[in-house]
């Protein structure tokens, strides 16, 4: 119930945003939604499953490239079809490498996911004919539910139909995740994070539970990636680089690790933060790094953790 109310509040904010902020800022919100979708998936794996992947940018890129290849090379403009292909492609890749990566936990898991991410990145970079190499592939405007919006300008399309589409997609993915984390499966995943051996002696096949979470996280990232590609207008190899994976983890921690609203809060704050920093200093990376360090040291449960603490303090 509390979750639903909080979600409605978030939804209301995003519905009001385009009217309050105007087109320029509205185009900035679409990547927020894209990251929020992707990170909602990564949060399942990292926050609830305790598995730190340093390679999930790969799945983001798979989604982006699926959309780009479908639209630009195969002429399939229907975004719904692009999304399905993105999810299938990403789910398949996750199912394959998950078998290997999940033989490990902790740092070894991080390293192995990093290794696969690096391979994928150099694949995108070096196989020019297929992937467009360094410059990537530009993404043509997709059609949404069969409507092509050909007469609209690019901005009008993004801040109009595509914004609402992305918001709808985020809502569906978010609510599904809300169910997943509160389901018996979600409990089993968290239990395995807290104590793997104990959990397996409670009759839970921990590996299989993590495997499903891994695949789900890959699928969520691909959906986010596809939305991101449309909003940027291109799929390029940078999307899959390991520093991108690092940023994704940063956003989750910033918002609040292992909390349902962590990714959306993180994505909004990160974008605002980055935007403000970049406008004010050339050395925004330093500031970003310092802020992340401070959060890790003093507020390991992120912004949401700070808010919760503040509320509890007021109640006393």
């Amino acid at each position, binding site marked *: 119930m509390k979750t639903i109310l909080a979600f409605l509040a978030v939804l209301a904010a995003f519905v009001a945003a385009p009217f309050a902020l105007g087109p320029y800022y509205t185009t900035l919100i679409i990547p927020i939604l894209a990251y929020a979708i992707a990170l909602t998936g990564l949060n399942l794996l990292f926050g609830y499953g305790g598995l730190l992947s340093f390679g999930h940018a790969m799945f983001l890129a798979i989604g982006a490239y699926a959309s780009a290849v479908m639209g630009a090379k195969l002429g399939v403009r229907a975004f719904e079809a692009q999304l399905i292909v993105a999810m299938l492609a990403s789910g398949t890749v996750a199912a394959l490498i998950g078998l290997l990566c999940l033989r490990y936990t902790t740092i070894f898991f991080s390293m192995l996911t990093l290794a696969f991410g690096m391979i994928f990145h150099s694949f995108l970079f070096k196989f020019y004919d297929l992937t467009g190499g360094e410059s990537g592939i530009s993404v043509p405007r997709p059609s949404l539910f069969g409507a092509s919006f050909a007469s609209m300008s690019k901005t009008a399309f993004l801040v109009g139909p595509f914004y609402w589409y992305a918001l709808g997609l985020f809502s569906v993915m978010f609510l599904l995740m809300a169910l997943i984390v509160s389901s*018996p499966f979600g409990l089993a995943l968290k239990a395995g994070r807290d104590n793997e051996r104990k959990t397996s002696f409670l009759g839970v096949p921990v590996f299989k539970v993590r495997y499903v979470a891994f695949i789900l996280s890959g699928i969520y990232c691909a959906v986010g990636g596809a939305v991101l590609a449309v909003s940027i207008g291109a799929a390029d190899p940078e999307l899959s680089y390991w520093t991108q994976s690092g940023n994704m983890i940063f956003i989750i921690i910033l918002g609040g690790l292992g909390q349902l609203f962590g990714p959306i809060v993180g994505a909004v704050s990160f974008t605002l933060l980055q935007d403000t920093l970049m406008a004010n200093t050339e050395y925004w990376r330093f500031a970003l790094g310092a802020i992340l360090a401070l959060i890790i040291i003093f507020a390991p449960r992120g912004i949401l953790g700070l808010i919760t603490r503040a509320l509890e303090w007021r109640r006393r």
Partner: protein
Amino acid sequence: MTEMLLRALNITKRYGAFTALAGVSFDISKGEVVAVVGPNGAGKTTLVNTLSGLFMPDEGGVMFEGRPVAGLGASALALRGLARSFQLVTIYPSFTVAEMISVGAFARAGQTFRLLRPSATCRREQAQVREVAAAFGLEHRLETTCSALSQGEKKLVDIASALTLRPRLMLLDEPTSGISSADKDRIMETLLAAAQRLGVESLVLVEHDMELIARYATRVIGLKAGSLVADMPPDAFFRDPAVIETLVGKVPHNALG
């Protein structure tokens, strides 16, 4: 003749040159409460780990319900009726008591991979959770976060979570360690009553407290340096000063009655 649940046959486990278990054999039948005793380093925990399939013995084997335990995997074994707890209390700090107990209930019902239904709305499993909690006297604690429990309650929740599986045989590695001696008796009593109420057929417990053993065990297995040196009913055990001397070091004055 009562039904046999578990058979350990000549199990031997070595760590390099050190032999932790040397050809240990025994059967455990329905209705027994078996206390495993012995000095530190005698191989008690190794025994429990081998019986529960966590360690592969170098020689010999363990059969549960007539089938080998080895290679089955912890989760499958637990679902088949052999559950265990660990020496160090293991709780999930962020879980509520109800959540912690429900993990096993969902596993037992084959619902672990149910993704789209909030666990709180699964009535049948929640009823089981309440039943198990009631058996442990934890019904007023269901919504408490595990990390906020007292040490004794943590122990009970830990064991309750495993008993939710309704195992036939439960292995308990030092269920009363870290508990003040005043509370030990109460914990043990709660635990045994709950086990009985939940249909557990046999218990194997590693235990140091001779008074508890005298009061609750139906059989005592003594290990020393990895070898089985005693396997007898408690009254015979406590009447044998030589055995007590070997396994405990001193004769507890009031256990002899």
